[in-house]
């Protein structure tokens, strides 16, 4: 009995340690966004000044909107294209399918620094240059493999007889897809979409290469701000982003059970 209790406490301690490791830096940053001292000085003095001054920082706000806009558009495009690609890979056998599938994975492993350089050179070569459009194209390219991997994994659990059953009942291809296949893979599509959003919203390296001073995203802007001199406004904007994105994740997890759903 005594050993079980000790093990139980060890287990709890481990979980606390793990959560602390994950969340402590974030919590400290969030706390500091409400601390009056710009140099992290204690004692803690409550203020919302940094949030007010953030509100005045047009550059940071513009970059935030750019980031959200690019992430949302990237998510929409890559989720739709990626899900369609997964369905095509699942349903049809065609020449070069194996090669195509194999080629989808390496981009995930290629360092972003290299992908970014390659994209910069390519976009200049074809005349797109740098800017928000270039960033958007780059993000979609980065996010697509993630969506395809996640949606394809979900499709592996789909019983092909379901599509056959729907067809035998008179459903055309569109009805089969929207009423039978999509509802089944929806958790995968949502998860793929979240991945795409995260890949785009967190993206620094590729965005840094493809942005121009006026047209930039939040991570690039934060990096530029830190180089100029750190201000707690960065803490404030980061805290807002963390709260919003965690709320999004929790909401999604609430509505979709990933993995073993019946």
């Amino acid at each position, binding site marked *: 009995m005594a050993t079980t209790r000790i093990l139980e406490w060890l287990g709890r301690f481990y979980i606390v340690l793990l959560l602390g490791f994950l969340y402590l830096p974030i919590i400290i940053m969030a706390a500091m966004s409400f601390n009056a001292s710009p140099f992290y000085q204690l004692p803690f003095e409550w203020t919302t000044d940094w949030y007010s001054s953030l509100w005045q920082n047009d550059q940071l706000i513009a970059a935030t909107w750019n980031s959200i806009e690019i992430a949302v558009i990237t998510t929409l495009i890559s989720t739709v294209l990626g899900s369609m690609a997964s369905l095509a890979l699942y349903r049809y056998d065609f020449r070069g399918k194996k090669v195509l599938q194999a080629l989808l994975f390496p981009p995930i492993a290629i360092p972003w620094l290299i992908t970014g350089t390659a994209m910069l050179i390519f976009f200049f070569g074809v005349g797109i240059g740098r800017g928000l459009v270039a960033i958007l194209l780059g993000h979609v390219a980065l996010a697509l493999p993630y969506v395809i991997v996640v949606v394809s994994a979900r499709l592996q659990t789909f*019983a092909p*007889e379901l599509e*056959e*059953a*729907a*067809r*035998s*009942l008179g*459903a055309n291809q569109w009805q089969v897809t929207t009423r039978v296949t999509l509802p089944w893979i929806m958790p995968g599509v949502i998860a793929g979409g979240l991945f795409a959003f995260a890949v785009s919203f967190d993206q620094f390296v590729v965005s840094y290469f493809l942005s121009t001073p006026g047209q930039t995203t939040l991570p690039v802007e934060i990096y530029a701000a830190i180089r100029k001199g750190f201000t707690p406004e960065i803490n404030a904007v980061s805290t807002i982003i963390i709260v919003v994105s965690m709320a999004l994740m929790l909401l999604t997890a609430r509505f979709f059970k990933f993995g073993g759903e019946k």
Partner: protein
Amino acid sequence: MAGVQVANVSRSFGAHKALDDVSIDFADGGFYALLGPSGSGKTTLLRQIAGFDFPDSGRIAIGGESVERVPVEKRRIGMVFQNYALFPNMSVADNIAFGLSVRGEPKATIAAEVQRALDLVQLGKLGGRKPHQLSGGQRQRVALARAIVTKPRVLLLDEPLGALDKALRVDMQIELKRIQREIGITTIFVTHDQEEALTMSDRIGILRDGRLVQEGPPEEIYDRPQSEFAATFLGDANIFHGNATGSGIRLPDGTTIAASTGASVPAGAKASCAVRPERIRISPGAAKPDPANVNTLTGQVSKRIFAGNNSTYFVDRFGQTLKVIVQNTGAERLAEGQPVVLSWSPDSTVLIAA
């Protein structure tokens, strides 16, 4: 409702001939079993009739209309899959409503038809359940209701009872037959279970290696198999090999066996005879042979399996083991090792051309 004609249908997958010139006529309103071992082409044939796959050559007609190039969604068939293939994201009622709903039927019509179908399969109150909340037998009924609610021209069943346990399977066989009679729909079902084929169908088609071996009513195939394969695949049979004499065959050891049914084989040609185990009389070595049972052989009991209502005797004779099934009538039981006389009538002996 309509009959189905399959004429000279062939289908190959690479070098493998899954169907080889199969012709079979399914009459309107009949209940057909396609029976065969795995790989015999029975499921391939069903999928050609359904329209999931198209034949390389040959014709398929439903209700007189050529459909061999019509895709499944336009064939107006109903299909029940081996694992039921119920849509997991929909309730039982929505599953059944699916076929009517994709056709754009009005909501009120759909609701009424769904309820009628639920009542027909005796699941009246379970419309709100999800498939995973149902038992195997209930899922089977939902799959059936979903397949017939659209009033298809033909009902196709792919090993529909394979996933059920024995007791439930017998219940569902009776149930399926009742529903089929009630709506009078032409039904074709694929099975590898000979008992299921015998008890349920009006006609059976036996397939082997992509070819139709024999087709006819269960009694006819059982009593007059045209090949050793048909004889042994549908039921049990003792097979004797020899040369035709004109009225039977002569075994290599000189014994003659008289046969009055089956093929006519010219004297001297290779032929075989099939005898069902329950048609053979077995008696102790000293007993007087029955004059009606002209075919007589002697042997020795090598094994007896008692199964309550009957016993199976394995009798050794010149290296061949013959099987005899005797009803439990309270008569004397024979011991293992005991010499016995086997006798049976020429009427119970089917001559088969080699």
